[in-house]
């Protein structure tokens, strides 16, 4: 290239040389662009025809219809609809009070990325369950109270029972499928938790196992509570939860 330019200089004036340099520079610049800037958009591709665009519009409409159930603000994580009334009459109010007291808000993508994700199997329990009378865990809940027998005073909308060997007692968790923060302050009867439940084995070391969400049954039977809960979380009860804080230390900052 240098030799060629030297030969040309002998036969052209300076104006021509400037033009040549400029042309060469622009040519090389163009080459660089093609190599690195837009590999996603191969040059030479044809444009979609009008019929293609009409069909694409139909595809877009169908996608929107097909995903309608799970639609949400695409800039925020997809979550439950925030209505916890299925857990009992006071569940929504309790969740709001819980959030206000401890300064909790809908999680951002950044927060979710920092929290500890776990696979879990979401199940329901209620005060109408046959084993309700048995001692579970003697742990104060966020309202600071327990039953006289030492059981936690379960609060619909904020209480879940977990395997304490996987999620420490008093931990704060977040359940996206319900858009619910919960305190893990309850557990199953001693030595019973790790056993298979309804024919389903709990997760191994990679999961949180069963996360049992407390419901206040009200006028409902134990079976109705379970059916309502199944309907709320979907046929497939497996889902991801997040451990926001392991152990009860997160409550120190709250009211």
């Amino acid at each position, binding site marked *: 290239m240098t030799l060629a330019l030297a030969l040309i200089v002998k036969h052209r004036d300076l104006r021509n040389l400037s033009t040549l340099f400029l042309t060469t520079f622009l040519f090389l610049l163009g080459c660089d662009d093609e190599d690195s800037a837009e590999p996603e958009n191969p040059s030479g591709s044809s444009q979609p025809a009008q019929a293609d665009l009409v069909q694409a519009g139909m*595809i877009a409409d169908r*996608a929107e219809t097909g995903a309608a159930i*799970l639609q949400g603000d695409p800039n925020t994580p997809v979550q439950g609809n925030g209505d916890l009334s299925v857990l009992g009459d006071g569940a929504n109010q309790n969740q709001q009070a819980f959030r206000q007291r401890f300064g909790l808000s809908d999680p951002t993508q950044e927060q979710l*990325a920092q929290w500890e994700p776990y696979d879990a199997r979401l199940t329901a329990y209620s005060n109408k369950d046959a084993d309700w009378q048995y001692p579970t865990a003697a742990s104060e809940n966020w309202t600071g109270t327990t039953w006289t027998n030492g059981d936690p005073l379960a609060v619909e909308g904020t209480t879940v029972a977990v395997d304490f060997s996987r999620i420490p007692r008093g931990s704060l968790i977040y359940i996206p499928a319900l858009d619910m923060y919960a305190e893990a302050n309850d557990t199953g009867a001693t030595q019973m938790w790790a056993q298979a439940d309804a024919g389903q084995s709990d997760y191994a070391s990679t999961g949180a196992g069963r996360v049992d969400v407390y419901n206040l049954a009200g006028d409902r039977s134990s079976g109705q509570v379970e059916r309502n809960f199944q309907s709320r979380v979907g046929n497939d009860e497996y*889902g991801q939860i997040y451990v926001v804080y392991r152990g009860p230390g997160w409550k120190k900052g709250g009211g």
Partner: protein
Amino acid sequence: MTIAFLLLTLCLCICFHASAQSPNPPAVTDLVQRADPQGHIEYCGQVSMNEAHYYLFVLTHQELSGIVLVQHPAGRAPIIADADTSIFLLGYNSRPYVPRPVLEAIKELLRTRNLKRKRLARGGTSAQLGEISAVGHDIDQVLYPVSGFRLRSDSTREILQLLRTGSTVSVDPKTAPPGSIIVSPTQFSYDGPIFLGHAGILGRDGAIYSADARYEGRLTKNFTLTSWLTRFSGTNGTYAFVVRARLDGSAPGT
């Protein structure tokens, strides 16, 4: 020929072993976790063949899910043999070499894993039971009834290849029209990192609809075009295609 086949079968019977129970060495888990530090990894089992061990992991990273296969030859360091939203391909030759018996055993391990997680409840087919991501399946559910075109693959790298070679028009992702199929193929190297890829459909409102691992792979409005480009373009690359309309304008099956 028959004798050779029998010998080969005998050899496989002797040298081949698959198990969901075998423990995986810490070095293997470390390799996968280092490859995607923010991802959630789930060990699904081991396949052994001819002095080499293959360790199967499911990798979940927010909306994304995929498969990571680690190869650990005897006396050598483990390497990532393959990683993508699916490693079971239509065009078998286009991927890193993993022996077919190993792939079949892996598919069986995944089927077992998925059955335990009750994925049958979603009405998946037998073939899909061996898959982890529904990235292509969800697109096909929308695409095929309208265009008659379908991907039949849940691998992001194969989806890109199918769109490039199919009856489509490549468009600039930044200005792609609604209804475009957008794909960012999985990228990885043998010792990490792994950047799981994804594919979806661009909606009319700038949103993208794609399979979401947080919701059992269901089609979800989970990205905007801007957030997609921010997330994938630097690591995976992003490509967009408009599927050509059929000349006769008929619906599939007519």
